[in-house]
């Protein structure tokens, strides 16, 4: 396929993905808006008012970046895992496999689909947050970069999960038992300074720590980890996830007989 044909194929996948989550917006977009509103009310307003300041900001201001990032992580991940597994389940993935579209275009198409959903929900959650607190942006460049990198990383992770999944149970196990604990332990609701040294060191193995703190730096200008380290770790995880996804597609594991 020449470059134009590849672009047409890529945009076809992206359009299909966007149409899919917009068609079922009550399952894909609305839940995050409602869940995050509840977080803002309960953790930010009710409990947060008793906690006081954290990292030099009100508790509500402190948790908003983490909650926006939480929405981006869960939505970019779940969009790709459910869509790609669904296409495996109903065999429509064969439409792509029999066509001449290169594997990296397939991967990038699904990933961009997940990224757009992550961004869509991020905007919705940010708008909801304005009802509870003012919006601070310390560095637009960091905010935009980290949002795109995070959404890409977790969309890739969702793709890997989808390739290995054999049932719908398999696509909920990782989000429930891996992703959610990582998010909650990733510094969304607290500063690393509150942890004992040992657990603070253990937390640094959690990619969500870098994601949440880098984003918090972009919004508030404070972070528990150094920004270059955060970008470096996210880039490393993304490169590994992309490489492994391409390996799965090129070898046809779980996709071809």
């Amino acid at each position, binding site marked *: 396929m020449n470059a*134009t044909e590849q672009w047409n*194929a890529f945009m076809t996948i992206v359009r299909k993905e966007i149409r899919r989550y917009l068609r079922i917006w009550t399952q894909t977009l609305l839940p995050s808006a409602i869940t995050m509103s509840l977080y803002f009310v309960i953790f930010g307003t009710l409990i947060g008012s008793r906690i006081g300041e954290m990292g030099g900001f009100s508790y509500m201001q402190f948790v908003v970046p983490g909650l926006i990032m939480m929405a981006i992580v869960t939505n970019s991940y779940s969009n790709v895992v459910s869509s790609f597994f669904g296409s495996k389940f*109903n065999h429509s993935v064969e439409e792509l496999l*029999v*066509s001449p*579209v*290169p594997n990296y275009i397939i991967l990038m198409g699904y990933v961009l689909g997940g990224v757009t959903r992550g961004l869509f929900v991020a905007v919705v959650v940010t708008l909801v947050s304005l009802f509870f607190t003012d919006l601070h942006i310390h560095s637009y460049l960091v905010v935009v970069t980290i949002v795109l990198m995070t959404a890409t990383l977790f969309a890739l992770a969702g793709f890997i999960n989808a390739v290995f999944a054999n049932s719908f149970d398999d696509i909920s196990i990782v989000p429930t038992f891996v992703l959610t604990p990582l998010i909650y332990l990733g510094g969304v609701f607290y500063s690393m300074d509150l942890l004992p040294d040992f657990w603070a060191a253990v937390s640094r193995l959690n990619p969500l720590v870098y994601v949440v703190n880098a984003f918090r730096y972009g919004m508030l200008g404070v972070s528990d980890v150094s920004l270059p380290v955060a970008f470096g770790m996210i880039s490393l995880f993304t490169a590994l996830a992309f490489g492994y996804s391409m390996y799965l597609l090129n070898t*046809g594991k779980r996709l071809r007989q």
Partner: protein
Amino acid sequence: MIPALRIENLRKVYADGFEALKGISLEVQQGDFFALLGPNGAGKSTTIGIICSLVAKTAGRVSVFDVDIDEDFPAAKKYIGIVPQEFNFNQFEKGYDVVVNQAGYYGLPPALARERAEKYLKALGIWDKRNVQSRMLSGGMKRRLMIARALVHEPKLLILDEPTAGVDIEMRRSMWEFLQEINAEGTTIILTTHYLEEAEALCRNIAIINEGGIVENTTIRDLLRQLHREVFILDCAEQVSEDTVIDGFPTRRLDPHTLEVEVEKGQHINQVFAALDRGGIHITSMRNRANRLEEMFVNLVEGKA
């Protein structure tokens, strides 16, 4: 002229050790309407799966219009349109979107994709249903949707795996006509089917595959010529006795007005009519007991031919 499809010593051993293909070789010429027949599990779908990249081959070579799939599979794929046995589209998408998306996967620009989708959905008589979720379509409409999808990039080789399974007679006939039209326009067609009547009506050449090997590869006409015996059912105006005998022709009474007569190769059925006429029996109608090709097929796969 280069063949549309050339398969050489193709082998497939699945992970569980089952050898689905034992080194088959096959050639399908451009413009042909070719039948690939075989019982369930014979290796037909594995062969098709390898040609369109859903199954990885163990050994052998496959080339499509002289493009080796090991050297440039994307280029080979552009020549192929595939209509699989099972419905493999997202049933929550509209039929129109299913076809337009497939065009996009082959790199067609959106405007051309929409134009082609309209052309083929109309040609297959499902344009009116284009905005219906595809799960709401009837079985026959879903089959035609898959044919439209396979044709949207206008492939030179169309492969259909049991395309008329579960389709009513009227719709099957209209699909036959459509396939004959596109074959006449130059598209090479390979068809697997359980309806042997379908192969006899549509195809010029045939390969019979059994237990992973090709047991016959010839023209339909030559294959039928190999038949040694045909069995005819004769409906009689008068009642026939249970012990009716026609010299030289094994005969059996099925009911008081129906006879079954075996005619060997080289014998003339006129002799049967003459013998019955002499006995005052008049024939009102006559038909084959079974499809002739079906009989031949059974003989071949059972090793009797």
